[in-house]
C-alpha cells in the first residue's frame, strides 16, 4: 500500500469518525433540549392548570373547569389531554384529542397523585399511549388536597422534530464526509507528489543519471531533502568524473609504459671484446627514458640514451618518433653530429605547436675495429668514462643543445663531439637525470659525484655487476625516499 493510499485511508477514517460523532452529539443535544423544553412546558402547564382549577374546584364551578381543560387541549400544541378531578374521582374533567377516552381515563386514574406541590412525571403504561408523558400535580387549598391535575403531552412532536433534524443532519454529514475526504485526497496527493518525484529521481540516480538536477520549489523538509539529494548527486558526479579521469590517465600511463618498454631493444648485439649491460626501472608515474643499441653496419655500432620531456601517450609517441628517426638517420650512414642535427630539424617541426617540450639524447658510435667511441650529446647529462689504464673516472663532456629547442644553425654550432678509446677494462656509462636527481629535494640528489664515487668502488666488475652495484648505492642513498623518475643506465665495457 503506498503512502498516499495510507494517508487517505487514515484521514478518511478520521473524518468519518469525527463527523459522525459530531452529528450524533448535535442530534443528542437537540433531543435533550427538546425533552427539557417539553418537561418545562409540561410542568408549567400542570402548575398553570392546578392554579386555575383550584378555585372552580372549591366553588364547584363545573363549567369553568370544563372549559379550562378544553382550552388547554385546544390551544397548546402537543398537549393531548388535560384533566382535573377530585380525589374521589367523582368530579372529573377530561379534555383530550385522543380517541380511546375510556382507556385513557383508566390510565390517568391509575397514576397516584404526588400529593405535594411538585409536578410528577410519568410515562403512560398502555402500549398505545406509550409516547405520552403525564405531568401531574395535586391541587390543594388550605393544606387540604382537593384534587389532582394532569397534563398529557405527546412526544410525537419531539419525534417529528428529531426526525426533521435527522433528515437535515444525515445528508449534511454525508456531504461533509465526502467533501472533506475529497479535500484530504487532493491535499495529500499534492503533499505526496514531491515524494514520488524524489523517489523517481533517486531511482534514476541509481540507474546512472547523474546529470539531471533535483529541485523542489518548496522550503519545507522535502525541499531540504531535494537540495540534499541534489548536492549528493553533484558530489557523486564529481567523484564519478574524477574516477573516470583517473582511470583514463592510468590507462594512458599504462599504454605509454607499454610503448616505452617495447621500444627498448630486446637483443643486445654481441660484439667480440665488448660487453653491454642495461638497467631500466620505470617510475610509478612519470618517466620518459629510453635507450637503444643497434648495428649501423659491419664496422660500427650505435648506442644511445635519451629522455623525452612530456609524459604519457604523447611523450611515448615522441619517444617512438625519436627512436625511429635516430635509427633511420644513423643507418643512413651519417656521422653522429649530422644525425643529431637531422633529429633536431625533425623535432623542431614536430614540436612547432608545443614549444615547451624537448628531448635530450646522448648518441654514440662505436668503431668496432678501432674500439673508439664518438660521443655526441643533445642536452643530455654527460656519460662517465672509466679508464683502466689511467685509473680515472670522469665525465665525457660532449656538448649540445636539447633537441627541438633551437633552429638548425644554432644547434649545429653548439654541437661538440668527444672521442674515447675503449681499451680492455675501460667502460662508459650512459645515464639519465633520473639517476642523479634521486632524493634531490631532501638530500640534494645522488648527483654525478655520487655516481662517480659508486663507480670508483665497482668499475672493475663485469658490466652487469657494475650497474647492480650503482643501483645498490643509489637505493641505499635514497633510503626510504621515493624514487620518482625512471632509473636508466647503459654500460659498455671493453674486455
Amino acid at each position, binding site marked *: 500500500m503506498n503512502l498516499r493510499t495510507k494517508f487517505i485511508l487514515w484521514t478518511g477514517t478520521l473524518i468519518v469518525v469525527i463527523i459522525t460523532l459530531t452529528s450524533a452529539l448535535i442530534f443528542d443535544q437537540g433531543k435533550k433540549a427538546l425533552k427539557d423544553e417539553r418537561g418545562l412546558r409540561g410542568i408549567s402547564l400542570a402548575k398553570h392548570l392546578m392554579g386555575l382549577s383550584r378555585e372552580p374546584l372549591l366553588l364547584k364551578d363545573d363549567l369553568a373547569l370544563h372549559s379550562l381543560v378544553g382550552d388547554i387541549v385546544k390551544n397548546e400544541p402537543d398537549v393531548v389531554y388535560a384533566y382535573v378531578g377530585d380525589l374521589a374521582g367523582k368530579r372529573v374533567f377530561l379534555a383530550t384529542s385522543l380517541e380511546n377516552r375510556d382507556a385513557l381515563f383508566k390510565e390517568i386514574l391509575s397514576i397516584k397523585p404526588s400529593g405535594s406541590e411538585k409536578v410528577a412525571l410519568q410515562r403512560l403504561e398502555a402500549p398505545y399511549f406509550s409516547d405520552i408523558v403525564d405531568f401531574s400535580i395535586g391541587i390543594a387549598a388550605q393544606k387540604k388536597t382537593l384534587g389532582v391535575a394532569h397534563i398529557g403531552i405527546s412526544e410525537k412532536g419531539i419525534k417529528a422534530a428529531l426526525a426533521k433534524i435527522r433528515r437535515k443532519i444525515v445528508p449534511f454529514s454525508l456531504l461533509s464526509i465526502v467533501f472533506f475526504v475529497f479535500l484530504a485526497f487532493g491535499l495529500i496527493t499534492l503533499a505526496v507528489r514531491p515524494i514520488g518525484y524524489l523517489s523517481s529521481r533517486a531511482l534514476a540516480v541509481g540507474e546512472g543519471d547523474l546529470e539531471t538536477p533535483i529541485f523542489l520549489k518548496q522550503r519545507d523538509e522535502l525541499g531540504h531533502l531535494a537540495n540534499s539529494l541534489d548536492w549528493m548527486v553533484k558530489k557523486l558526479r564529481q567523484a564519478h568524473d574524477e574516477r573516470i579521469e583517473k582511470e583514463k590517465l592510468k590507462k594512458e600511463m599504462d599504454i605509454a609504459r607499454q610503448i616505452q618498454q617495447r621500444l627498448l631493444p630486446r637483443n643486445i648485439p654481441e660484439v667480440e671484446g665488448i660487453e653491454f649491460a642495461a638497467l631500466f626501472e620505470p617510475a610509478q608515474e*612519470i618517466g620518459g627514458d629510453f635507450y637503444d643499441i643497434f648495428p649501423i653496419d659491419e664496422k660500427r655500432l650505435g648506442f644511445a640514451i635519451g*629522455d623525452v*620531456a*612530456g609524459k604519457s601517450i604523447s611523450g611515448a609517441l615522441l619517444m617512438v618518433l625519436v627512436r625511429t628517426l635516430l635509427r633511420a638517420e644513423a643507418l643512413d650512414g651519417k656521422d653522429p653530429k649530422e644525425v643529431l642535427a637531422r633529429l633536431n630539424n625533425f623535432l623542431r617541426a614536430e614540436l612547432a605547436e608545443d*614549444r*615547451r*617540450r*624537448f628531448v*635530450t639524447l646522448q648518441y654514440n658510435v662505436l668503431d668496432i675495429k678501432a674500439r673508439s667511441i664518438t660521443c655526441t650529446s*643533445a*642536452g*643530455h*647529462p*654527460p656519460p662517465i668514462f672509466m679508464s683502466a689504464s689511467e685509473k680515472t673516472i670522469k665525465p665525457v663532456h660532449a*656538448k*649540445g*643543445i*636539447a633537441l627541438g*629547442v*633551437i633552429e638548425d644553425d*644554432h644547434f649545429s654550432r*653548439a654541437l661538440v663531439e668527444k672521442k674515447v678509446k675503449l681499451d680492455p677494462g675501460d667502460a662508459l656509462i650512459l645515464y639519465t*637525470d633520473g639517476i642523479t636527481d634521486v632524493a*634531490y*629535494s631532501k638530500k640534494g640528489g645522488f648527483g654525478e659525484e655520487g655516481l662517480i664515487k659508486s663507480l670508483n668502488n665497482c668499475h672493475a666488475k663485469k658490466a652487469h655487476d657494475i650497474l647492480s652495484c650503482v643501483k645498490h648505492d643509489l637505493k641505499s642513498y635514497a633510503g626510504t625516499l621515493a624514487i*620518482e623518475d625512471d632509473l636508466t643506465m647503459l654500460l659498455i665495457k671493453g674486455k
Partner: protein
Amino acid sequence: MENLTVTSKSDPRGIIILKVSGFVDASNINRFDEELYSHIKRGTAKIVVDCSDLQYINSMGMGILLEARQLAAKRNGDVVILNLPKKISKVFEILGFNEIFKLYTSEEEALKAF
C-alpha cells in the same frame, strides 16, 4: 611537495624582475607557469628571472622557461636569467640552455640587456 615562491617587481622601464625561489617540480609547476605567463599575457615581454634562491627546476619548468623566451621574443622582448646557482647552472649547461638564454650575474647587467 616542496615550496615555491615567486615574487615580482618592476623597474622604471617596465621590465619585470621575477624572483623564483625554492623548488619548481610537478607539484607546483602550474603555479610557476601561471606566474610567468601572467606577465607575458599582460604584454610585458621583458622579463628577468632571478634564480638566486632557486634550488631545483624540473624539465617541465625548463620547458616553460623556453616557451616564455620564445613568446617574449615574438613581442620584441626576452626572458633572461639572473644569478644561476651552481647546481642549476649545471642543468642549464647540460641541456645547452646556456647557449639559448642570456645569463647574468648582476641585476644591473641583466637590466641592460633590454
